[in-house]
């Protein structure tokens, strides 16, 4: 994302060290989510375990709308970043709040999905596929929740200080990277876990 805080004392490779650390962290997160996705894929087709399986209960239209909401939250996030580069502090707050709200809608959808599945008789202990599903989507939801907390923190700081300074601007950039990463992980989960037969 744009270099909002171009501070030479924090650079060694021409990129702010904090930004470099964030990219490194996000790269390592592929291993984390890769483990969870692989576990689910290994167990989803195993026979001989008590039903119901996650695939029997998926509500694709509902999950599609949740996916769309999360995709649109990436748009609002990048608009917040764009507003900051134009020093339009009021719009920064508006877009940050919109992103957090869309994230909350996504989390609400996930809570609804989980509670529906439990009512249908699929808990963490029902079978290994169910455990893998809850673990994967639950950890993703936790990442979204952490993102929401960071977004609301930035919103609060901006409101209290009347805007985000250049140093705080980098924080918005880092939170934005994290948020978009959560989105791309969901793109993979939605396709691999929900849509592929």
């Amino acid at each position, binding site marked *: 994302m744009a270099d909002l805080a171009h501070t030479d004392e924090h650079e060694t490779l021409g990129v702010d060290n904090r930004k470099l650390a964030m990219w*490194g962290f996000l790269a390592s997160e*592929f291993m984390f989510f890769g483990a969870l996705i692989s576990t689910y894929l*290994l167990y989803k087709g195993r026979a001989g375990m008590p039903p119901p399986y996650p695939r029997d209960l998926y509500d*694709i239209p509902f999950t599609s709308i949740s996916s769309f909401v999360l995709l649109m939250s990436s748009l609002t996030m990048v608009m917040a970043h764009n507003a900051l580069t134009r020093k339009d502090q009021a719009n920064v707050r508006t877009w940050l709040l919109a992103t957090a709200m869309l994230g909350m809608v996504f989390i609400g959808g996930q809570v609804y999905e989980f509670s529906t599945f439990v009512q249908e008789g699929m808990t963490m202990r029902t079978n290994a596929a169910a455990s893998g599903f809850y673990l994967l989507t639950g950890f993703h939801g936790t990442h979204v929740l952490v993102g929401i907390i960071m977004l609301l923190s930035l919103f609060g700081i901006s409101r209290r200080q009347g805007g985000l300074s250049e140093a705080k601007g980098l924080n918005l950039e880092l939170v934005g990277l994290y948020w978009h990463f959560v989105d791309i992980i969901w*793109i993979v989960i939605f*396709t691999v876990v929900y849509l592929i*037969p």
Partner: protein
Amino acid sequence: MDQPTETREVHTAEGHHHPTPRQYVQIALLLGLLTAIEVGLFYAEPFFGDLVVPALLVLAAVKFGLVVGYYMHLKYEKRFLTRLFGGGFVLALMIYAVVLVAFGIMANI
């Protein structure tokens, strides 16, 4: 004359230009359209058969690339950040492909 705020391009400290808000919205609409096609393919699986899985994977890859390239601005960043991020992705992909094949084979023994 100054360009209107909504269409003005954003320049980084390194002189790269980023997409305009209008372009961001166009990308979002494209992402929404690709998601709709994915869902359509899911329901059209009886008609398209084996083509559905590769088509879904290609669509997911395009969405992934759009978000990483334009929203995360990796397209405009220094090359080594692409190598760092892409390296993590490819490493995970290779390791877990081996894990899935190995465990898949063991499960069938």
